[in-house]
Structures are given as C-alpha cells and as structure tokens.
C-alpha cells in the first residue's frame, strides 16, 4: 500500500491542481515583490536623507513592521482592520498589502545598506573630476550600489516566496489548502496520501526557491571580484 501512495499525486488532475495552487502564492509574491522593489528603493533613499525627522519616521516604519511576525500582520489586516473600517478585503488582497508593506521595509533597509556602505571617497572623487551631482549618481553611486543590492534583493525575493505560504492561515486557497483537499478526498483509498502530498509541496517550494538563491549566490561571488 505504502509503495503505491505516491500514485495519489498522479490521479486525475492532482499534480496540476497543486501547481495551480502554488501559482496563487507565487502571484501574491510577484505582486508584492514588484511593489516592494519600487517603494523599497524610495524608502531606502529616504532613509539616507539629511533630515533627521524623515530618517526617524522611516526607521520607525521599518522597526514596527519587523518586530511583529508577518502572520500577525496578516491577521491584523484581514480580521481587524476590516472590522474597524467596516469594509471587506479579500484574503488575497489583504495578503498583497501585508507582503508589500513588509517587503518595502526589508527592501528599504537593503537599499539603505547599499548606499551607506559606499566609501565616501567614491563620491568625492567624482566631484573632484568635475562631474555634476546627477552624473555622480548616474555613473558612480548607482552602478556600485546595484551590485551590492541585487544579490541580497534576490535573496529577499525567495524569502517572500517562502513566507507567502502563511496566507493559507487567513483562508487563501493556495497550494497547502489544495493539498488538504486532495488528502481529504483520497484518505480512504490512500491512507499515506498526506505524506506524499506534503512531501510534494515541500519539493515544489524547493524547486522554485533553490534556483533563485543559487543565482543570487552566483551574482554575489561574481561581483565581489
């Protein structure tokens, strides 16, 4: 019986359904990664602002987002905010918002790190040879900052893909939920279904995240010269 348990994955459309479920998580991750990339860069630049107040506000945002577990944020947005403001958010949309906010905070910190870790003499030398401020940013600061930023930003993307697995807990029907449905249907025929289904989901995540983190590691070693 056990040896045949794996067949549960190939029955009907099961494998296809799992991948379809995974695409929901990936969609949430993709939307929030896109937003985080844009707003994260903005936040990161603001965090290096000359004005202390702006820096403090950004810092507060970052720490506030970071100190509370993402799952709690999901609950706050999906259950509490909607109740206070008397409107409905779909679970998926609430997830989009939470992951965008969280990603923006983390990305902002990465961008800030990339900008501040730049040796000061780089900019000074640029000005010394008569470049304008725009040129200094265009040819000196941004290219170097990007090299520091991109590997860790890709890493953040894999973290976001992994963390989107939490959305099942506020009721989004994604890969884990589909897995549970498959298990419930086939529990009598194949008692070991949960082993194979959860094992399969485990490897689906691995197959998606591993190449991405490998790519980021490669870029990192390549650009570290």
């Amino acid at each position, binding site marked *: 019986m056990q040896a045949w348990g794996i067949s549960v994955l190939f029955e009907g459309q099961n494998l296809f359904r799992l991948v379809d479920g995974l695409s929901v998580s990936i969609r949430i991750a993709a939307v929030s990664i896109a937003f985080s990339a844009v707003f994260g860069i903005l936040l990161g630049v603001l965090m290096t602002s000359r004005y202390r107040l702006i820096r403090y506000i950004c810092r507060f945002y970052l720490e506030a987002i970071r100190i*509370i577990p993402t799952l709690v944020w999901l609950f706050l947005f999906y259950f509490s905010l909607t109740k206070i403001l008397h409107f409905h958010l779909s679970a998926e949309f609430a997830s989009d918002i939470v992951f965008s906010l969280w990603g923006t905070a983390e990305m902002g910190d990465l961008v800030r790190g990339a900008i501040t870790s730049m040796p000061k003499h780089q900019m000074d030398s640029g000005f010394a040879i008569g470049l304008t401020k725009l040129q200094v940013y265009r040819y000196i600061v941004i290219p170097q900052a990007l090299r520091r930023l991109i590997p860790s930003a890709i890493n953040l993307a894999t973290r976001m893909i992994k963390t989107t697995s939490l959305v099942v807990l506020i009721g989004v029907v994604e890969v884990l939920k589909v897995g549970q449905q498959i298990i419930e249907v086939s529990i009598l025929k194949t008692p070991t279904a949960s082993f194979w289904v959860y*094992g399969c989901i485990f490897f689906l995540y691995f197959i998606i995240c591993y190449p991405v983190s490998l790519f980021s590691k490669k870029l990192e070693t390549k650009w570290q010269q």
Partner: protein
Amino acid sequence: MDFNFMSASIPLYIKAAKMTLDLAVWGILSSLIIGFICALIGYYKIKILDKIVRIYIELSRNTPLLIQLFFLYYGLAKLGIKLEAYTCAILGLAFLGGSYMSEAFRAGLEAVSKIQIESGLSIGLTRWQLTRYIILPQAFAVAVPALGANAIFLLKETSVVSAIALADLMFVAKDLIGMYYKTTEALVLLVLAYLILLLPISIFLTYIERRVRHAGVGN
C-alpha cells in the same frame, strides 16, 4: 474596545507566551548546536559529511517552516512515525534555524584572517589549540549579531506552530476571535504580547552589536 474582556484574557496570553517562549528557547538552542556543528564540518571540509550538510542547508533554507511542520506532523504520522505537536514544532524550528545559524557561524569562521591562523601555527599551537584559542573566539565575536538576528527570526517564526494545534500566542488570539468575535481586542493583546517578548531582546541585541563591532583582529 472592551477593556474588561481584555484584562480578563491576560492570563490566557501569559500562559500562551510561556509556550511561545518555551518553543523558541528549545528551538534556538538546538539550532545553535546544529548550526555550530554544520559550520565546523563545512569549514574544515570533512569528507562526505560536508556534502550532507550542504544538502541539508539548501533544503532547509529554500522551504517554508509551515510546510516543514505539516510534513513532520501530518505527513510522517501516516508512515507510522507519530510525533507530538510539541516535538514537531521544536524539530521544525531546529531544522529551519540550524541552517541559518550555520551560515552565521560560517561567516564568522571565514572572517578570521589567514594571518591569525598562520601566526598560531608558527608559535607551535596544535590544531585543537588553534581552533580553541584563536579561531573560535574571533569567529564567535563576528557571528554574534547574525546569531542574534536569527534568534529573533526564530522567535517570530514560532507564530506558525498554531497551525499544528499548539497553544501559543497566535493560537489563543485565534481562539478568542473564534469564540467571542472580539477580533480587535484579541489582536491588540497579541501585538502587545509579541512586543513585550521581542522589544527587550531587540534592544539588547542592538547594544551587543555595538559592542562587538570591532571584533575583527588583524585585518
């Protein structure tokens, strides 16, 4: 907001906070041990074992804790390996945290400059003495901030264990929402509970980080 309800629920949260902390402490301790061993195996490139460690780290880093827990708790049970939810949670945290801790230790070990090791060897230290007195103290000092960040990360990750029916903070909040529909009250208490747990640790770590910033020697 219903403050009477909130103050009446505080004991429930205290009990749950103990569960969260309990899991976090065991999870962090075991991942420190796993991480330390894995990092040493990788650093000294011990044959075969370092390949296994590599595979373990990639598997652990590229999959979410929630899925790991479901696999351990629901998946393995069907093969006759029945683990308690509590054991599963600690195993899951250790499995996840071990790889993160290992990378942190590894970065520390690699930060010890070659000169340090060569100087140690040239004054006649044995391999063991070199590790004990030269490499480990420096590596540890460099690794501390990352280890601390991982500890906080793991403490936050424990919020997932409610999915396998462990009565942690998240679980109590969900329970109160389900039973009394006091959504806002339950979640405000939840946020406060996490703040009380995490803020002191986070502030303490910022302090430690400042102290060990000059840990690198001979660079």
